[in-house]
């Protein structure tokens, strides 16, 4: 049993690589590597596979998704050019926007914005604001996440609190989805998460979100964008952007967008993230 399992585990990546190689030899080029972070539900493997196929067809070149445990790792790969593009949180983007090129941003509920949600367990009906959670347990998603880390700490700093001493204990869950679960299981007393992820999870696993209560929806911030290293060839960059932008017009693309819960992708100006930049300036000071 264990042997067979090991065998499959070994074969599966080979098979994936095999198809990738076949496509590569057909197209006569190496696959395009696209880094993904948990700014959305990266657990949905079937959806990712459909999307990968779609993008590969659209740009006429195989696409390979690169997943890592933290935002930091993807950012490092991006800055060193070991991935050709990535869907990252807007906070690392504004921190490194001199080395990155903004490709597109998702359109969610009609605009390229999302909100951060402050959530607590369902049976907590007293908490109104993050400062009510003083001396409690809190879950952050990733140290490079705006909604899952920087923003709640920013709120505390704005309120004159020391974010490092405010909670009795804070943990890192490495994804918004885990933070939602940590609150739902009452492992922690609160968390700040990407509102888009919470909405999506409510659609897929309502029994988890039902155990949480959204205390606060933040003002809108620019949605985590698709970026490429500044050094990526303009041709590739252009083809990739076109592929994303065209998704809303293609039936296959619409199916994927529907599954992602997005309206589409749009070209946006870097100024969309000025608010985030302002926060980053405060937090890094």
């Amino acid at each position, binding site marked *: 049993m264990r042997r067979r399992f090991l065998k499959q585990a070994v074969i599966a990546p080979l098979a994936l690589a095999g198809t990738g190689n076949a496509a590569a030899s057909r197209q006569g080029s190496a696959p395009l590597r696209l880094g993904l972070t948990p700014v959305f539900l990266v657990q949905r493997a079937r959806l990712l596979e459909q999307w990968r196929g779609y993008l590969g067809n659209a740009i006429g070149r195989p696409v390979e998704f690169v997943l890592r445990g933290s935002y930091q790792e993807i950012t490092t790969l991006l800055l060193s050019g070991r991935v050709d593009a990535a869907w990252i949180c807007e906070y690392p983007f504004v921190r490194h926007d001199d080395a990155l090129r903004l490709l597109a941003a998702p359109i969610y509920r009609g605009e390229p914005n999302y909100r951060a949600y402050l959530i607590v367990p369902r049976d907590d009906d007293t908490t109104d604001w993050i400062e009510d959670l003083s001396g409690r*347990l809190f879950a952050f998603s990733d140290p490079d996440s705006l909604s899952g880390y920087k923003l709640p700490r920013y709120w505390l700093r704005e309120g004159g609190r020391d974010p490092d001493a405010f909670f009795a*204990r804070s*943990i*890192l869950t*490495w994804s918004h989805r885990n933070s939602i679960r940590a609150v739902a*299981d*009452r*492992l922690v007393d609160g968390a700040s998460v990407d509102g888009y992820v919470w909405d999506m999870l409510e659609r897929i696993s309502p029994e988890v979100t039902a155990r949480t209560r959204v205390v606060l929806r933040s003002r809108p911030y620019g949605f985590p964008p698709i970026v490429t290293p500044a050094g990526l060839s303009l041709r590739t960059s252009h083809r990739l952007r076109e592929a994303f932008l065209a998704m809303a017009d293609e039936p296959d693309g619409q199916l994927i967008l529907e599954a992602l819960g997005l309206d589409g992708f749009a070209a946006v100006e870097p100024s969309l993230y000025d608010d985030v930049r302002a926060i980053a300036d405060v937090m890094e000071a």
Partner: protein
Amino acid sequence: MLLMRDLSFRYKIPLRAAVLVVVTALSVTGAILVSEYDNVRKTVFASGETLAGVLTETLREPIRHDDVWRSYEIIRAPLDLPEAGANLALIVDPLQRVFVSSRPDEVRMQTPISVHGQEFERIADVMVEAERGWASGPENSEALRIVEADHYYVIAPVLADGLLLGSLILRYPKDMHWPRFIEIGQRAGWITLGVLLLLLPLSWFWGQRMAQPMVDLAQCIRKAGRRIPEESECRLYESEDELGQLSRRLREMFVSLREKEALERQMMSSERLAAIGRLAAGIAHEVNNPLGGMLNAISTHRRHGEMSPRTERTLDMLERGLAQIRDTVSALLVEARPEGGLLGPDDINDVRMLVLPAVQRKGANLRWDVEIDSTVAVPATPVRQVLINLLLNASQAVGERGQLHLRLREYAGRLELAVGNDGDHIPAERLERLFEPFQDVIDGGGTLDGGRQGMGLWITYQIVRQLEGRIDVESRPGWTEVSVSIPLQYADGGTQ
């Protein structure tokens, strides 16, 4: 309980068998449950240690990196399986605070474990000691097994290069035994019921078999309260066991009681007969003296007086009447005078000649079974009279074309004779007074002894008694037999 004691063995024995079956089933089930309890406990600890071994390995890095979420996911995963058994996993830091638990709503992280109930209070104490051992060297990483009131605990250290990072506590509820216990109990219940269904009729049958001889014995003894029951009335158990011995003793007791009863009856009857004999002899003597006088007077008057024809008739009448009284009285006063010779074959042939006409009148068949071919030392006259009386009685009693039987022989110094016939048998109540005088008259039946007004058997009895012999009557439907035994007499006149 009194009710149980009063119950017949017929029910007591199967009931006891049933109780025995139930007790056996209960004790076997109990033994299985105890061993099952032990097994489950061993299994819990063994699988708990295996799980703890895997988890502590996996947890080492997350704990070192202070990664609560990954630790949480690692301990949650196996406990979410339905067959996990454990209902709580905890990681505790060396200060005995909860690093993370699989049920954060029950056991919050950062809390000291001792606040989570008495069981954890004791565990905290035990762990202080254990942690010292674990920290002392890599060879001391044995997991702890703890049995508390409601739970089993397996506690294993998370060690990194000999440094104690924390401990993993797995908690198993004790009531996880229950479903298995209930299942075993139910199965045992069904098997017991099956065995009972099988054994109850069997033990019922055995009980009946064992109890039946006792019940029969009890019934037989109950009958003996009123009278001694006949052999055929009691169904007694034959064997060499205690019950068989008891039955045999009872039977022996009944036999001797019956014998005693018969003897008493016989004694009463012969005493009565003796009294009657004495009374009769007394009356006869008293009557005979005046009677002789009266007869002499009549005779004298006849010889010397002149009598008118009328006086003649009167005297004749008186004389006949007195003669009849004399005959009757002399019949009562039987005397077996040892006159004449001893009994020889000729005497017996004479008897045959005398009774044959009476037998032939009935068309009956007389079996003459005589084993005497020479003189026998008994007086001929009274024995002849006895033979004639008995044979004539028998030929009266025998039915048309019936069977008559005479057996006569000398045996062991006695003359044994028996006269039997197949006529109507004599009822028991009559048998007792058979030999008393005037019985036929009293009973209102016909005379058995040829017109001598019921004196035949009385005379026979008196003769046999005077010859110091014994007379018995046995009468059952279809056969009546009178047997007489007379001791032989020798030259000195005495008997042997």
